[in-house]
């Protein structure tokens, strides 16, 4: 009765949507139809009937999809994603979110292990004899992206809850005999019934977190992502027989895994997580009627491409791979700049976040252009960098602190996966911050340690570029040092600019941004190169210097003039002359 009663409480359009979406994802597998339902119809119905409220529960609509557990899990994920975007989630909502994703991924992984290879074609879609699920790439990425977003939010939430509880516990009066009716003397009840103790909602949150320490455990989050990569055959050569949806989940899973590792501070793992995308032995994946390489698949979903570029750019920066970082970030910024001008990016859902991320990447490029003198970014992006961050860069030139401001603005919200000791949070005298939870501070501090020598190195470089040979003592005096103090800096400069680079070891002075931004390579192809734009060596007590020859590029000028000429000719042809 409850189902019948509840089913009459929501509009027919909702019932139709659920039925159609179930059909598109479990029976007909028509990508265009599913894309329309997922990207357009869902948003329209949400805006019309549920702008600030939850969709009907999965039990209420179960009859429309034949009580299909996997589809109901997908529906739960979709609707809870909407709810968390309009309402601040409580601790129970967060834990429930974890249960939703765990159930969904378990069902998907079970389904993938029972499907076998097959072939065939449906009406404009992908149909195999054993495929029982199809999700469009955008849906697959949104699912993975939200999964990690909720993990990140949960890590921040539990740290904030601990800090809040610890603050109140530390501020509580030492004697609690007159303060409460609570037998254990700790904060409890609602509305802050304990005088001087943590408020009720904080105690409740600590209690729920303590009882659900397995929720959003990093081991499980990482495990699901890795298992999805394996299930999709992304790491094996037999991927061509794997149904398309699992391959989508595998590749977007690797992008999400890269993001996870970056947020946890494991930058090498963040970079190597993307090796499956650039595997030359991987077969193409069918997307509707087209086939695409894994990299093209990811680039076809712009939010995925943006997330990949941003997090791998940060990882390269922290790994001291400045050229690679600049090429990745410069490439995506150039693409976005063009997209903003043409308005194409505004059509993509979630585009309001793109501007923020663009600004953050420009800030990172400001750091990189200062640290790595060899330019790999397009002139238009370089001019945007100078325009937005001229103040910060001039502060750095003057010897003031500027890198930290830029990095704090631009870096991701790092998290620590360790579970706090909730039992200590409510006791007076507990640490104000849980052990090891200054993840953000650790990364910023590490970055500043890396940047500290660059002021001296930059000054040194500027003097060296003026000479072909100069005595060590003289160069040291320019840098306000004695010769014996200065000699280590000569070796240090070479050492710090010696770095791994993607692809070939031959370093060109200027590399077209798009050429490197679109063609990723796996870490197996990494080679040692140098980001120095001057070459020097020390013989005896003389430094011999040779600046790299600047490559003059004329093709841009000629292309532009040819284009202008064609425009003029076209206008001339359109002029009608009546005589």
């Amino acid at each position, binding site marked *: 009765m409850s189902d019948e009663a509840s089913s009459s409480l929501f509009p027919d359009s909702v019932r139709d949507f659920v039925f159609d979406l179930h059909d598109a994802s479990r029976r007909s597998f028509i990508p265009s139809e599913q894309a329309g339902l997922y990207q357009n119809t869902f948003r329209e119905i949400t805006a019309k009937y549920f702008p600030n409220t939850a969709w009907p529960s999965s039990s209420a609509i179960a009859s429309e999809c034949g009580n299909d557990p996997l589809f109901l899990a997908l529906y739960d994920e979709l609707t809870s994603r909407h709810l968390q975007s309009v309402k601040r989630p409580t601790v129970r909502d967060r834990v429930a979110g974890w249960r939703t994703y765990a159930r969904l*991924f*378990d069902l998907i992984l*079970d389904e993938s292990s029972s499907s076998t290879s097959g072939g065939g074609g449906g009406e404009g879609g992908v149909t195999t004899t054993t495929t029982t699920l199809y999700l469009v790439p955008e849906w697959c990425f949104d699912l993975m992206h939200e999964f990690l977003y909720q993990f990140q939010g949960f890590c921040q939430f539990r740290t904030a809850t601990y800090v809040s509880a610890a603050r109140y516990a530390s501020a509580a009066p030492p004697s609690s005999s007159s303060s409460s009716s609570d037998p254990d003397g700790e904060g409890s009840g609602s509305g802050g019934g304990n005088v001087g103790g943590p408020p009720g909602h904080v105690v409740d949150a600590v209690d729920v977190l303590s009882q659900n320490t*397995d929720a959003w*455990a*990093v*081991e*499980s989050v*990482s*495990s*699901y992502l*890795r*298992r999805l990569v*394996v299930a999709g055959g992304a790491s094996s050569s037999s991927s061509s027989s794997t149904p398309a949806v699992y391959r989508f989940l595998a590749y977007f899973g690797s992008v999400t895994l890269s993001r996870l*590792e970056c947020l*946890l*501070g*494991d*930058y*090498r*793992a963040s970079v190597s997580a993307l090796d499956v995308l650039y595997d030359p032995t991987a077969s193409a994946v069918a997307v509707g009627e087209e086939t695409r390489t894994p990299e093209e698949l990811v680039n076809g979903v712009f939010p995925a491409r943006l997330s990949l570029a941003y997090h791998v750019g940060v990882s390269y920066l*922290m*790994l*001291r791979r400045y050229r690679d970082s600049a090429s990745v970030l410069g490439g995506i910024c150039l693409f976005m700049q063009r997209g903003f001008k043409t308005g194409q990016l505004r059509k993509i859902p979630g585009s309001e976040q793109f501007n923020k991320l663009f600004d953050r990447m420009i800030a990172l490029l400001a750091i990189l252009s200062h640290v790595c003198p060899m330019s790999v970014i397009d002139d238009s992006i370089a001019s945007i960098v100078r325009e937005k961050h001229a103040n910060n860069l001039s502060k750095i030139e003057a010897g003031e602190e500027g890198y930290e401001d830029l990095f704090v603005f631009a870096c991701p919200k790092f998290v*620590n*996966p*360790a*579970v706090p*000791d909730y039992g200590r949070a409510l006791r007076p005298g507990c640490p104000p911050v849980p*052990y*090891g939870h*200054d993840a953000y*501070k*650790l*990364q910023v*501090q*590490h970055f500043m340690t*890396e940047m500290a*020598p660059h002021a001296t190195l930059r000054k040194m470089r500027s003097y060296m570029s003026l000479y*072909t040979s100069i005595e060590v003592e003289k160069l040291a005096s320019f840098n306000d040092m004695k010769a*014996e*103090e200065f*000699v*280590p*800096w*000569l*070796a*240090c400069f*070479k*050492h*710090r600019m010696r770095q791994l680079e993607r692809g070939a070891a031959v370093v060109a002075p200027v590399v077209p941004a798009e050429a490197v931004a679109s063609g990723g390579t796996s870490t197996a192809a990494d080679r040692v190169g140098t980001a120095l734009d001057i*070459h020097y*060596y*020390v*013989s*005896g*007590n003389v430094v*011999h210097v*040779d600046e790299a*020859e600047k490559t003059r590029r004329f093709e841009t000028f000629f292309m532009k003039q040819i284009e202008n000429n064609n425009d003029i000719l076209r206008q001339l042809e359109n002029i009608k002359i009546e005589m």
Partner: protein
Amino acid sequence: MSAPLSHAEVQTLLSESAYDPVRLSQARVLRPSPGLAVASTLVASESPDVRYSFDAILPPTSGGTTRVVEVTALVLLLALLRYPDTDLAALCCLAPERVQSTEPCATLVRCWELLDSCDYALFWPEFRKLGIPEYGASSSDDGGRNGRRRRVRRSTPAQRRGQRPDRVEASSARARRGRWRGRTARPPLGAVLAALDLSDVGSLVEFGSRTALVDGTTTTTTMTMIVEGVEGNVVTFAARGVSYDDVATMMSKSAARGQ
């Protein structure tokens, strides 16, 4: 509490099993396998789950020293001995600040910082604070070899611990410093001796005769002694296939072309 799982068992558990809170709690009681194997895994950086388990599950012991600190110190030491082939910066991004500031990790991080800034002369006194058995280093322990005073972090002498490697390959570590210097310079003799913690020309020549650059292919391997010679006050390191005189000639030609 069930018996701790081995590293391989945890990897299998996490990569192939469905989500199960009971099995998850089993994974959480992972105890590090003999330090060297685990440390190698950490240095190879293949299994993030193992690292996070350390941080999450090992509480401070009553003695104030945790297994986290011990294993982290071992990892840092192994990575330091193979520097610059290893990425200590990446390791420091993972170890919590509290661990990095606890001895002996603090000294190891300081050693890395000195190597990274090419302050070789200051590296050796700092490295000796770890208390690793002497390996024939110079008897002088002049922290201010270059006449500078630096604020060196005070630390208690490191205890001999069972998890430390039995043999520190000091000669190989010194050889790496030597190869590193060789990339840049025909440096003055005094700087080379200070950087390699050697006392005189004789010991430098003897060190050079024991250390070689190896260029290998599948069919041929050539070995070149790292120190070509000492002329007056200048040490010449062997550069792989490159003569500094040829480099100087090329550079002067390109400079003339540019004028």
